[in-house]
């Protein structure tokens, strides 16, 4: 149920009143941003429902430009007096902060609403239905022959509304909702303890989630880990990156390397690589900001009010563009690609738009079935997430392959533990030997196929 002060018109009206107050100060321009978030969560612990939670928060952020000097302040006290204090604080900061050459606010643009981001399917989910869904996820654990338990796991519905207005006439408002699940499970049998197993789902269409199947897969993965082995050695350099291991380390290093601020400040290994080959020819990366089936970053405008877009970043292995916010676009004499972020998680009003990141990244699929991806591997490993160190500047990574499984003669074989991998992300991109046809959304953010590569050092801790 939407209360009066949470409607689009009331939120924008308040933002405009704050903007008017700011514009009356002797400053160049001002911007008011707000974020409203409402969540309902059903938590699970062990094999049972635990806490039910309901949270809501609305907060405003004020950014002031005095020529090219920026002041920023925020508050979740939403009465006019508190927000005026917020403006005053931001103005005060412009009196003491140094200039940021090139800093401007975006000019108005026409924002295309993205259908399918706010759905009745999610809005109409009841708490009872969420409990039933959680019970379905837990059911296979309750039937398992060994102990499989969850902790800090949840099914949640969330609704987010963002808005922005600035002195140049920008006015944007976007509302979305989603159903998410985030689960952590561990199996234990006597003294044998399995590893943490994580899985998640993210959707705007509740009929897309098979909760029982999700629970079955999670349970079987947890149990599989109980019998993980550590071979004396694995004489191979073939690794298949799946699930979150694509996001980190691979995608994180790519994202750093394509950020215009990394490029401009010489922190990117790709700073001189525009129009050069940076990956194998079949590797394609797009930022699919308007695709309603993309992850949580799909949106009509970015966090400073620039229109978002579909951007081809790596095409047939060639680096086509970097991604920009307004500041970096102005400094590098180009146009923003609509990739400004106020932090990468949590309540967005608490940070100024100072990060550049892809909105809805999509590594395009290849032409191999999952079976074919495995099938060509005489000996290698597939793993789910990476627990280790990686350097965004030079691409070097080193750490433990979690949720790993041996592949022998094209078949999935025994689960592995205490297996380490090391390599360089930039080399990995040029040593890809297969991309799967099937893709999945990892972490509710990155759409990716399985990525098979060679040239990764594999060692065991035996």
């Amino acid at each position, binding site marked *: 149920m939407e209360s009066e002060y949470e409607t689009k018109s009331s939120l924008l009206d308040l933002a405009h009143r704050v903007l008017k107050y700011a514009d009356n100060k002797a400053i160049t321009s001002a911007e008011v941003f707000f974020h409203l978030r409402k969540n309902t969560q*059903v938590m699970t*612990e*062990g094999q*049972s*429902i*635990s*806490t*039910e*939670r*309901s*949270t*809501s*928060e609305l907060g405003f952020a004020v950014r002031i430009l005095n020529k090219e000097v*920026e002041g920023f*302040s*925020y*508050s*979740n*006290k*939403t009465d006019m007096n508190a927000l005026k204090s*917020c403006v005053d*604080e931001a103005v*005060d*900061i412009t009196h*003491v*902060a*140094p200039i940021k050459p090139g800093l401007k606010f975006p000019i108005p643009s026409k924002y295309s609403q993205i259908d399918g981001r706010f759905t009745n399917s999610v809005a109409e989910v009841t708490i009872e239905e969420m*409990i039933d869904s959680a019970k379905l996820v837990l059911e296979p654990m309750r039937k398992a022959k060994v*102990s499989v338990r969850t*902790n*800090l796991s949840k099914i949640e519905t969330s609704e987010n509304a963002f808005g922005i207005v600035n002195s140049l006439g920008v006015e944007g408002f976007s509302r979305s909702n989603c159903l998410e699940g985030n689960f952590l499970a*561990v*199996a*234990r049998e006597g003294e044998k*303890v*399995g*590893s943490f197993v994580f899985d998640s789902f993210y959707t705007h269409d509740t009929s897309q989630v098979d909760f029982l199947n999700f629970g079955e897969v999670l349970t079987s993965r947890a149990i599989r880990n109980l019998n993980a082995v550590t071979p004396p050695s694995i004489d191979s350099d073939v690794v298949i990156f799946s699930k979150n291991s694509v996001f980190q380390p691979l995608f994180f290093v790519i994202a750093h390397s394509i950020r215009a601020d990394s490029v401009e*400040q*010489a*922190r990117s290994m790709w700073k001189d690589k525009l129009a050069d080959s940076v990956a194998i020819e079949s590797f394609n990366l797009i930022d699919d900001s308007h695709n309603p089936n993309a992850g949580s970053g799909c949106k009509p405008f970015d966090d400073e009010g620039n229109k978002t877009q579909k951007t081809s970043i790596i095409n047939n292995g060639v680096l086509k563009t970097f991604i920009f916010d307004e500041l970096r676009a102005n400094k590098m004499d180009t146009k923003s690609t609509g990739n400004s972020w106020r932090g990468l998680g949590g309540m967005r009003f*608490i940070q*100024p738009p*100072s990060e550049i990141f892809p909105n809805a990244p999509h590594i395009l699929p290849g032409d191999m079935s999952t079976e074919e991806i495995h099938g060509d591997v005489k000996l290698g490993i597939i793993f789910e997430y990476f627990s*280790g*160190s990686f*350097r965004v*500047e*030079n691409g*070097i*990574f*080193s750490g*433990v392959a979690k949720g790993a499984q041996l592949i022998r003669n094209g078949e999935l074989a025994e689960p592995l*533990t*205490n297996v*380490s*991998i*090391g390599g360089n992300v930039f080399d990995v991109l040029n040593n890809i030997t297969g991309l799967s046809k099937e893709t999945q959304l990892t972490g509710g953010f990155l759409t990716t196929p399985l990525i098979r590569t060679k040239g990764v*050092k594999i*060692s065991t*801790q035996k």
Partner: protein
Amino acid sequence: MSFFDQDLLISGLKEGEKLGASYVELRYQDKYLANFRYRNGELTSTTGSREGICVRVLIDGSWGLSATNKTSEREIEESVQSAAKLAKNSAPYKDSKVELAEIEIIEETAISPRKKHLKELSTEEKLKMIIDAAKVTENMQLIKSLTINYNEVIDNRMIVTNEGTRVSWTDMKPTLMAYAVAMEEGKMASGYTSWSHTCGAEFFDLHPMDEVVEESAQKALKLVKASLPPSGLSNLLLDQQLVGVFAHEAIGHTAEADLVQLGSFTQGKLNQKVCDENITIIDSPVLEGSKWMGAGWLPFDDEGVRGKTTHIIKDGIMTGYLTNRALAAELGIEVTGNARAYTFNDEPIVRMRNTYIKSGDMTFEELCESIGNGYYLKSLQNGQADSSGEFMFGAVECYEIKKAEITEVLYQNPVLTGNAFEVLNSILGVGKDFDTNLGAGFCGKEQPAKVDAGGPHLAVKAMLAGGK
């Protein structure tokens, strides 16, 4: 303390009881954050605060939680009603009813230790300090990038319960981080230095900003010439920062009662020998006897429980788990005051505070002797661990030790892996020194938490992963 009207919260308690709650808890929080980030000539400044109320009620053995940033009497009442409704909803689906362990009911206030309030230094003065510190690297040709991040949190909390708990405190934590990137002949390396304590503006005297920047830059300059470390089982000397993360990540998490119930390695291990008898690991709400007050300072937790110092492992024996009230009751053990929530809309969950390995009796030279040939690992990059005690820590520097002498041979970014309990079963020596510094980092377990960790230098046998 006057940062919020306690009577407003108390009015919510009555509403909760009226709705049938056996336990009602209201927590108010107002968190001020200032963040100043310098990156390659650009300075981004952020200040602001978030306030809100979190209501938890227990009805028929079932939790309901409702949180909002609206804090009027009517809105508090609505939040209590919402929490009660949620608790009643889930009650039929619970396998077992939640019970709460008995606690000492306290009415107290606290202010974190400080010599000078953080706001006694103006924003202008802090920005100037950062800009001046950035000049340190101006003439270092190989330093291509410098980031300085300073933030300060002033956190006001108030908790009331229908059992009579009336607790409030103000906590102040500055954090400083410098990150330099050096580049030479196409190779890049980074150096990182960070500090965080519970204190006031005296922080800037303890860690002058220019010195922190200088240290990070010198690390980057050394490391850009360094190659990757070798891999394999080695004798390793760990500095206090790595020992701290070892205590926190690899051992401490496995002793958090919720993870114990999940099935972690320490389940069923109370009063059993789990590692070498020279190892004692402690989690403490207030870190006494250290050079500085640990960033995990927490005299009361977010259930209003007075924090207790907990020996997780004492002389190699597993002696304690970290608990909240519900898990303490479930396991039939002591409540330790480890229930923590990061913001007002987070549920208190079991978290550590200041976690450390107790000092032993060996000098640094004796530790090097115990290593013989091996490596000296310094400075934390990151760390993670699993339910089984399997861990991974990324360090920054790795010096070769030959014949008990630390050499000039330096490798970059070693990664240490293994099983924590196996490693602690075969330790080579525990130093007599002690320090704490988990740097700018947060512990991330559903929600962030500011923690600290440390210990003495420790000599172990463990695996270096990846590398060349």
